[in-house]
Each structure stands twice: as structure tokens, then as C-alpha cells.
């Protein structure tokens, strides 16, 4: 597919790509020191390690790779219009569909490169701190990365749609940044607030004094119900925010129990089970990619490239 290699080269040369890698490196260096400290109080350190590594990759994808994917997509077509390269490319014997898919695949591969970097980095730091890598950690990381890739591809496809709707790459970039922070950070706070109000209403809690009056069993039931409501509300109101749905799936990969002696136990459930327990989230992450790509193609095929 023509343009795929060119787009990959172009993506890997952008400053934003390298900035993201440096940020991941810095965050991991700091975060993994904390992981090592946490392992000291755990009865099953290997499982804590697995969940921590998967969790950090998910969070770095949520914060940095996701941002990169949306920004790269949002400036893909409009920047080619601004510098005229789209007119050079499409004056050659190429169809518009092939051109756009080449762009999408090239950029998707740059995301895979960023994720591979984050994963290899997590392996290296784990080794550096003297912890062992097990087959289950490596296997689950591969599965986690595939899930993260779905979320990132959705952001990339959404970005591409934006780049065909807004002709100025600077405006599109600004909008992508605002969208990323509003849908990934602000909206979840608002939606979680609605879920908490609903849970309080169901349990007859008006303020925190009422919460303290609940028995241990009722408190557990309240927390479980709240967790259910978070997921339900995310699916209802944040179905377009793959980074939020992805974190919902990853929340289910372990269960932490605090012991009476001050230690805690992490029961590792696994990525495969977490995905199976959240089919709607996974389906939305995968399903919206072709929807956004279809809309982008529909728009791009009728676009005046002047």
C-alpha cells in the first residue's frame, strides 16, 4: 500500500513522537521505584509486579500514547493539504481510499512502536530493580497491549476524522487536545459524580456521617454497587472515550484484599478474564474504529483538496 512506509517514517520523525517516548521514560523511571517499594509489604510480590507493570503501561497509553494518537490523527490530512503533499500524492495513480488507509496504517504502526517501547522499557526497569519476569507477565502484557492498541486506534481514527473536518491543522490540534482532556479527564469526573449520587441515593446516604453508620457488609455492598454504576455510566455517557473504557477493563485484572496484620494480598485475575468480564467495553473499543474510519473515508472521498 503506497504511502504506508512514508507515513511511518514521517510519524517516527515528529518531535511529538520523541517527546512522548521521553515522557514515558521519565514517568517509568519514577513509577517503578515506587513499585519496588510497594512490593515490600505484599505477600505475593510477583502478582503485585504483574498488575503494576500492566497498570503502568495502561496509564502511559491513557496519558501519552493516546494523546499522541489523537494529535497525530488530527493533523494527518489537513497538514498534507497545507503543505500541498496531498495534491502531489493524489495526482499519481492512487485512489483516495488507498491513500487514507496508507496514512492510517503508517500512523498505527508508529503507535505500535511507542507501545513496544513502553513494554520493553517496563521489562528493562523490572530487571534493573532485580525482579523476575515470568511467562504470565509477558503473556498478559501482549494481551494488554492488544487491548490498548484497540483504544489507541480508535483515538487515531477519531483524529483522522477531525483532520478531514477541520482544514487548519493548528485548530484541529487544539480541538484534539481539548477533546482529549475533556473526554479523558473532566467528563469522567462529572460522570463518576453522577454514579456516586445514584449509589448514595440507593443506600440512603445523605452525607459521610451516614456512610460511617453502615455495617462492614453494607460498606462492601456500597463499594461493589458504586463500581457497577461507574461502569454502567461510563458505557452510557463515555462510550466515545476509549481510554476510560480501557481503564475500566484493566481495573478488573486484580483484586486487592487488606489483611489484619497490615499486609495486603493481590489476587491476580488476569487480562483475559478482565476482557471477558467487560465485553461491552471491548466491543465498543473495537467497534468504533471502523465507524470512525468509515466516516473519515466518506468525508475524504468527497473533499475538495485545494
Amino acid at each position, binding site marked *: 500500500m*503506497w504511502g504506508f512506509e512514508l507515513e511511518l517514517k514521517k510519524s517516527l520523525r515528529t518531535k511529538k513522537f520523541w517527546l512522548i517516548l521521553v515522557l514515558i521514560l521519565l514517568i517509568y523511571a519514577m513509577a517503578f521505584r515506587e513499585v519496588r517499594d510497594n512490593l515490600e509489604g505484599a505477600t505475593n510480590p510477583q502478582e503485585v509486579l504483574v498488575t503494576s507493570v500492566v497498570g503502568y503501561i495502561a496509564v502511559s497509553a491513557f496519558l501519552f500514547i493516546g494523546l499522541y494518537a489523537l494529535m497525530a490523527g488530527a493533523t494527518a490530512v489537513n497538514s498534507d493539504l497545507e503543505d500541498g503533499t496531498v*495534491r*502531489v500524492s493524489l495526482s499519481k*495513480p492512487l485512489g483516495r481510499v488507498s491513500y487514507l488507509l496508507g496514512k492510517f496504517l503508517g500512523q498505527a504502526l508508529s503507535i505500535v512502536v511507542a507501545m513496544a517501547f513502553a513494554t520493553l522499557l517496563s521489562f528493562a526497569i523490572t530487571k534493573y530493580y532485580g525482579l523476575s519476569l515470568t511467562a504470565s507477565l509477558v503473556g498478559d502484557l501482549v494481551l494488554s497491549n492488544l487491548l490498548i492498541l484497540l483504544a489507541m486506534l480508535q483515538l487515531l481514527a477519531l483524529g483522522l476524522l477531525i483532520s478531514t473536518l477541520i482544514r487548519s491543522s493548528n485548530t484541529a490540534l487544539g480541538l484534539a487536545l481539548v477533546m482529549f482532556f475533556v473526554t479523558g479527564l473532566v467528563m469522567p469526573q462529572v460522570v463518576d459524580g453522577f454514579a456516586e449520587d445514584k449509589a448514595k441515593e440507593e443506600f440512603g446516604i445523605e452525607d459521610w456521617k451516614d456512610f460511617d453508620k453502615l455495617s462492614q457488609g453494607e460498606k462492601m455492598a456500597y463499594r461493589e454497587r458504586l463500581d457497577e454504576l461507574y461502569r454502567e455510566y461510563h458505557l452510557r455517557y463515555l462510550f466515545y472515550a476509549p481510554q476510560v473504557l480501557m481503564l475500566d477493563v484493566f481495573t478488573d485484572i486484580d483484586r486487592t484484599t487488606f489483611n489484619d496484620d497490615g499486609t495486603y494480598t493481590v489476587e491476580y485475575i488476569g487480562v483475559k478474564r478482565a476482557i471477558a468480564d467487560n465485553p461491552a467495553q471491548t466491543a465498543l473499543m473495537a467497534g468504533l474504529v471502523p465507524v470512525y474510519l468509515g466516516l473519515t473515508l466518506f468525508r475524504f472521498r468527497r473533499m475538495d483538496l*485545494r
Partner: protein
Amino acid sequence: MLRVENLVKVYKDVRALDGLNLEVKPGQVYGFLGPNGAGKSTTILSTLGLIFPQEGRIELFGEEVFRDGRFDEGRLVKAKARVGYMPEHATLWDFLTPEQTLDVIADAFGIPRAEKEKRIGELLDLVGLKEVRNRKVGKFSKGMRQRLLLAQALINDPELLILDEPMTGLDPKGIAEFKEIIREQRKAGKTVFFSSHILAHVEEVCDTVGVIVKGKLRLEDSIENIKREFLRKAGYTIIIETNKPVDWSSAEWSVSPLDSNKYRVVASRDVREEIHDFVAGQGAKILTMQIREPSLEEIFLRMVD
């Protein structure tokens, strides 16, 4: 080779093409003239399927590629394999060298490796970029970028070369070399469709000219015919200088004095012999006589006005 019929393109409330008709025949070097905003680039982009006109018909190499708002994608892609296009205002990929740029473009045409390498070497030599073949395009001047844009347009040895304002930003040496390349294309039997608002460039290299104003083709003919027609309508201007004053009151032509014993005669045809007889009849002699041909620029400005 290229035929456009009743092409209409409206941008919001601006009618960029207003029923445009034009035809570029095989082997022609066709100069497409028009003031800024006349519709030149819109026409070119439409023929390549980069812009969607609302109405009309476009034929490339005898195949209908567009009709009434719809491109035939399959035919268009096939036709584009035989076209070379140099856009106005394009920068190409800054991170590639000229050699890599041409390599990427050649891949779009599926040119085999050995042939591709040979062609790239020839083209870099032709456009004078051989010495900088390994320098990143991002470090190129405007003129060097224009040369590379021309090279990429020629990579497939196109039958139809479409150039949109190709000499903008070139220095005089670059312009001369560009014109030479266009002449070479003509000698090789290629067809060139070349838009410009700089008339001197068109006049020197084109054999046929089309003038577009407000989305309509106002004129399409050979440069010689255009000038002849213009002279027929606007009149011939003849400047003469005599050895002594001449009384023009009985002359049939419009005469205005320019200097002492120097006059401008305007007539509907070439009246140089009659002027000679008229001056001689008054016992005077003509020292110099010049018929002033209108430049294409003059014709163009009159038309646009």
C-alpha cells in the same frame, strides 16, 4: 488529450468555474492564462480529481473520467498513470532527500527498481539537483523545491504534463532552464498544459493560449492568430519619423504627434505603403517607420478589463 465541457464549480457563493470549455490536443503546449482567482488552479485540480465540480464533463486520453458531479475512480486512476502534475505551492516531504522523494513517487507508478534508479539519476541531472541529491528537501530554497516538483512530475515520462504556475519563485537562470525543459518536452511529442499569469513565459514556450476570466474561457487560439485578431479589432499602431513636418489633416487615419516630426498613426489595417505615399506627396521623407505589435500582456489586460 484533455477535454473539459461546461464545467461548473461553485465555492459557497463564488462561481469559480462557470461553464468552462477547453480542449488540449496531443502535442500542444497550451498556455492557460488568467488573472489571480480566474479559475486556473480549480480547472487543473478538477481534471486530476482533486476537486469535485458540480456539473460538466472531463475527458482524459479520450476516456470520460467525470460527468455531472461524479468521478469514475477506476478510469481516473488509469488516466493519472499517464499524467505528470506539478502543483503550485507544494513543499514535498522535508525529511526526504530529492533522491528519496523521487523514489517514493516512482513507487506510486510501480516503476521497476532498475528503471527507477536510471530515471531518478537522469531527472536530477535534468533539473540541476544532482549535486544536492543527498541533502534534505527541508534545507532547499524555493527555487530548488520548484525544480524537484518538476522532476517528480516527469518521473513517469508522462504523455500529458500539467504545470500550475511552474516558474513562480525561480531565478532568471531557473526560468530559462524551465522553458528549455518544456521545449524539450514539445520536441519529444509530449503535451503540456501550463497555467501562468506571467505572459512572457507563456508567449515564449506555448503554441496555443487559452484565457480564462471569471471561470469562463474568453479566448482560445494560437498566439499568432490572437495577435492578428487583436490588431484587426484594436487597430495597427505605426510610429513614423519624418525629415520635416507633415500636414495630416487630409489623411484617412487617426494621427497624433509624439515629438517634433514624430507621429503615431492608428489604422484598421497595415497601411505602411499608403503612409509612405502620403508623406512623399508632401515632399517629405520617412526616416524611420515601425509597426508596433501588441504584446500578449497588452491583449490580456484589455480582455481582463
